[in-house]
C-alpha cells in the first residue's frame, strides 16, 4: 500500500508567556507538545492515535494538516513536503486533507446555516456552479444521515441535535472529496447511542469514499473497533505502534499495558487491573529525563532515566519505545 501521509521527526514547542524574569534568562520555558514524532499512514488505512491529555495527539493531528506550523520536522503528503507549500498549493492540499473536530457545536459558526457551512468549502475551491454545489451538498447530507436534507439545509446549528451537528461537521469535511481525514476525538461530546451511529457512519464512509483516517482518541475501546493500526502517545512521544490484534493481545510498552488495563468495561464481572502506574501525567514543560514514563513505571530500571528509548521492532509491524522485554 502506498504511503499517503508521512510525518518525519515532528517537533512542536509552544512558547510560554514568561514573567519579567524570563526575559533576562536565556532559557525560555516552553511546552514540548510534540517531541520528535514520526508516523506513516498507508492509503486506505485507519490509524488510531491514542493517548490521554497532554499526550500531544491533537497537536500532531493539526501538524499533519499544517493547521499548526512545526517547530522542526516535516510532513509529506503523497511524497511531497507540505511544510513549505505556497498559498495556492496549500489551498489545493486543503481540499484533499480535512479535519473533524471534537465539539461540533463550537466548530460550526452559529450564524451559518447547515447548507452554507457545507457549501463553503466548494465555494472556496471554486468547485461547480451554485446549482451543482447545492445538489452535491444535498446528496452528501443524505449520505451522512442528515435527512430530510432539504429541510435541514436551512437549519442553524443551535436547532440541531448533537448527533446531527456532528454529521454536519463530517459532511463539511468530506464535501471536497478529500482522501485524508483527521478525526480529533469526534465522539467525545456525543451521547452513547450517537457514538455508535457516528462510528458506523465513519466506517461506511471510509468504504464508500476510499478514505484514510487518522483517528485521534483517548478511548481505546473505540479505537479497537475502528482502527487497523494504533499508535500510543505519552507526553509528546510515540511509545508504541502495532496492528490492532497485536496491540490488544500482546501490548509491549508498560504505558500501553496500563492504558489497556484501565479502560472501563461494560460488564460487571470484569475487574480492572489494580496495578496502576503511580502518580499523574507530569508537566510537558519539564518532562522527566530519559523515558518520559519511567517515574510512574512499575518496571523502571536505572537505565530508563539515561536516554530516550528508541522505537524498536518487537514483532513484524510492531514497534515499542521500551528497552525492557
Amino acid at each position: 500500500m502506498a504511503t499517503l501521509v508521512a510525518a518525519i521527526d515532528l517537533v512542536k514547542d509552544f512558547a510560554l508567556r514568561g514573567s519579567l524574569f524570563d526575559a533576562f534568562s536565556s532559557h525560555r520555558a516552553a511546552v514540548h507538545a510534540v517531541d520528535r514524532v514520526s508516523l506513516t499512514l498507508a492509503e486506505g488505512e485507519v490509524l488510531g492515535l491514542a493517548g490521554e491529555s497532554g499526550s500531544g495527539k491533537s497537536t500532531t493531528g493539526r501538524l499533519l494538516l499544517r493547521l499548526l506550523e512545526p517547530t522542526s520536522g516535516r510532513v509529506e503528503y503523497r511524497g511531497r513536503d507540505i511544510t513549505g507549500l505556497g498559498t495556492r498549493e496549500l489551498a489545493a492540499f486543503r481540499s484533499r486533507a480535512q479535519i473533524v473536530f471534537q465539539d461540533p457545536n463550537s466548530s460550526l459558526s452559529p450564524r451559518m446555516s447547515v447548507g452554507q457551512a457545507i457549501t463553503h468549502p466548494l465555494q472556496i475551491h471554486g468547485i461547480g456552479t451554485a446549482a451543482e454545489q447545492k445538489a452535491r451538498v444535498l446528496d452528501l447530507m443524505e449520505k451522512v444521515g442528515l435527512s430530510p436534507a432539504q429541510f435541514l439545509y436551512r437549519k442553524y446549528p443551535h436547532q440541531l441535535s448533537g448527533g446531527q451537528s456532528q454529521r454536519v461537521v463530517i459532511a463539511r469535511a468530506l464535501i471536497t472529496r478529500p482522501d485524508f481525514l483527521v478525526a480529533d476525538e469526534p465522539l467525545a461530546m456525543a451521547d452513547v447511542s450517537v457514538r455508535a451511529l457516528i462510528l458506523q457512519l465513519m466506517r461506511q464512509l471510509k468504504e464508500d469514499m476510499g478514505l484514510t483516517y487518522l483517528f485521534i482518541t483517548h478511548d481505546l475501546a473505540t479505537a479497537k473497533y475502528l482502527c487497523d493500526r494504533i499508535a500510543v502517545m505519552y507526553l509528546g512521544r510515540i511509545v508504541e505502534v502495532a496492528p490492532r490484534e497485536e496491540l490488544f493481545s500482546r501490548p509491549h510498552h508498560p504505558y500501553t499495558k496500563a492504558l489497556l488495563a484501565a479502560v472501563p468495561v461494560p460488564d460487571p464481572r470484569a475487574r480492572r487491573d489494580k496495578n496502576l502506574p503511580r502518580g499523574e501525567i507530569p508537566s510537558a514543560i519539564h518532562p522527566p529525563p530519559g523515558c518520559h514514563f519511567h517515574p510512574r513505571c512499575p518496571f523502571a530500571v536505572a537505565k530508563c532515566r539515561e536516554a530516550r528509548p528508541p522505537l524498536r521492532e518487537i514483532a513484524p509491524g510492531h514497534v515499542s519505545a521500551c528497552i525492557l522485554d
Partner: protein
Amino acid sequence: MQSTSETILRVNDLTIQYPISIGIVRAVEGVSFTLADGEALGLVGESGCGKSTLGLSLLKLLRPPGRVTGGSILYRGTDILGLDGRALLAMRGRSISMIFQNPLTSLNPLFTVERHFLETIHFHDPSRSRGKALAATGKMLATLGIEEKRLREYPHQLSGGMRQRIMIGLALIMNPDILIADEPTTSLDVIVEAGFTELLANLRKVYKLSIILITHNLGLVAEIADRIAVMYGGKIMEIGSAQDIFARPMHPYTQGLIDCVPNIRLDQKELVTMPGSPPDLVSPPVGCRFAPRCPKVMPVCTERIPGLLEHAPEHSAACWLYERHG
C-alpha cells in the same frame, strides 16, 4: 448484596418540571426507587433522560424555574422536599453529599485545600476545635492518598485527578450516609479514572457509604454499582442488579445501550446501533416514550404507558413485552 439492609432513601413517584417559552418540560416523571444502606445504585442514561435533574432534586438543589411538582424523597423517613432553611443546610454535606463533574469549578479558587476542609467542618460542627478539625483533615488526606504538603496549595495548582479527590474528601469529611456522584469521572483521563474508582471502593468500605452514581458511562457503572436504574425520557425503564441488567436486560433500550458500547475485552465486528433521538419532553409521545425508536414496538406501546413492574426477582422493567395488555 444487602437485601436485608434497611432502606435509607426512598423516592416515591417523583415528578420534576420546568417551564420554557414553548411549554413545560417534563424532565422527570413518576420516578420511584429505593437505596439500601451501604448500597451503590447507578442511574444510567443519556443526556436529557433526567438523571442529573433527579440527582439535584435529591438535595433540593434544583434551580428555579425547575421544580418538583409531585412525589416525595424520604431520607430515613423524613421528606427532604419538606425541609427548609437550617434543617436543609444541616442535611447537605452532613447526611447526604454530592460531587459533580467538574471539580475545578466546584472548588473556590481563593481557598487553599486546608481552608476548604476547615470551612466545611466548621460550618457543620462549629464546636469542633481547629486542632481536631486539622486532625480529621489529615486523616482524610491520607485516605485519599494526597500528601500533606498539598494543604497549602490552591485548586489551580492541583491536577484534575487530585481536585476530584479533594472534592470527594470534602463530601465525606462529615461522614454522610449517602454520596451522590454526578458524572464524577467524565473530565478525568482513563488511568486517573481507574484510580478514582479504586479510591471510591475503598472509601465505601471505610465510611460505610451508600452511593448514587449518575453517569452515562456503562463501564464505570458496571464496576461500581450493585444495582442499576436505566432512565430514558424522564422515566425509569428498567431497574435491577448490575448482573441482571448486563446479562439479562429486559428493556429494549437497555439492550440497545449495552449493544452499542464498544467492549475492549470482546472482538466486536459490528456495533448494533439505535437510530433516532431522545423524545421531546415538552410534548412526549403518547404511550411508552421509547416506542418511536424501539425495534420491538407493538401497537399497545404507542397507546399506553407500561408500568415499572417486577417481572423477575428484584428486576423490574417498564415494557409491554412483559406486561399483559389484553
